[in-house]
């Protein structure tokens, strides 16, 4: 199944930068576009906490378009990778059909960040994708 168009755009844009440093700079730019959500927007609750993510990431959703808005709260000021992925998933998947979001492959984390991730880091980021997929699947 096709990846939602906006997310595919992000992935294709990143693929245009095979140089690792250029890709890192682009991801940092995305992370810096991210704006954290207040606790009234995204409740910091164990039930919506992304497992295995050291940056303390929480997910809340609200109806948008054909699907949902995916709002990640990232409270760790050093959680730049989590912020970058939060921004990519929000802008790439919010409003997309739930059936498409539920089918997004988790391997997009490596398309976005490359393969040079530690086990812990790749797990935390992959779990952000898994959580979006699970919420989309449950909302269908």
């Amino acid at each position, binding site marked *: 199944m096709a990846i939602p168009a906006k997310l595919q755009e992000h992935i294709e844009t990143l693929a245009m930068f095979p140089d690792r440093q250029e890709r890192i700079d682009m991801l*940092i730019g995305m992370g810096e576009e991210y704006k954290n959500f207040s606790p009234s927007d995204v409740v910091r609750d164990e039930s919506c906490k992304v*497992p295995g993510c050291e940056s303390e990431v929480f997910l809340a959703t609200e109806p948008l378009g054909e699907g949902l808005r995916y709002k990640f709260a990232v409270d760790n000021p*050093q959680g*730049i990778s989590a912020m970058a992925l939060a921004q990519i998933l929000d802008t790439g998947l919010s409003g997309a059909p739930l059936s498409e979001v539920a089918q997004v492959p988790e391997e997009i984390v490596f398309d976005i*960040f490359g393969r*040079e*991730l530690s*086990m*812990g880091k790749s797990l935390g980021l992959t779990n952000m994708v898994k959580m979006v997929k699970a919420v989309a699947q449950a909302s269908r």
Partner: protein
Amino acid sequence: MSTLEAAQNSVEEKGLNPNKLVSTEWLAEHLNDENLVLIESNEDPLLYSQGHIPGAYEVDWTRDLNDPLRRDYLQVEAFSALLSRIGYTPNSTVVLYGDKNNWWATYALWVFELFGVTNTRILDGGRIKWQKDGRAFTREIPTAKNSGFTATNRDDATVRAFRDDVLKHIEKNGKLIDVRSPEEFNGTRLHMEAYPNEGALRGGHIPGAKSVPWAKAVNPEDGTFKSIDELKALYEGEAGLDSGSETVVYCRIGERSSHTWFVLKYLLGYGNVRNYDGSWTEWGNLVGVPIER
């Protein structure tokens, strides 16, 4: 007392070794020292480029420290090239720091030690303490004149343990510290919480090992090391270690245990501590080796 001596107070007041651990105050005072080589080593690949302590070079554990093909560390030629690139000379003092309570910084320090580079120090608290102090980060990437440094061949005997070493060690009831989580130690979990299984077929721990999770050595609020009294209470009072005994530490792949190795060797002054980097991903898959639960 000079300003520089005073800058080390936070380390010395804790009774810790000021020759291996420096405070953020000390580093701020010494940033422009000619012989300082400052290194940031992180788990998060974006952090260094987003901002680092002025003058810091990046040492990336995936690209810079490991052999690209086999499970081993880099060879002497690659290590020489790395140190030469960052301007290291025998007169340099290396200060390492990073994210995750200096987990990866101590790992890098341990790899440096394999090549006999021991004029190294850790920044107490690492990135998080520097940030909490309100100190500046920069995106400017320093460039050093290639120093032409040539390292000595790797010594895998002094601070590194292999599986046969560990087998001999347990035969003589040597001291072992398992720095993984209690659940990994007791075998109810084959991997870190929420981490995928990295292929260990058996759970448990090496016979005789005591469980002391690595992060117990650190104050969680700012990543600094605990005081000498707290560390002694933990490793000697609770785990029964002593400075005169041979000790082997291990975790899953040898990175968390490098943090504990640093604590035992340099903060508690133990004379013979080795890191078993094969750790549980090797031991938990070996045919016929003893396991306890």
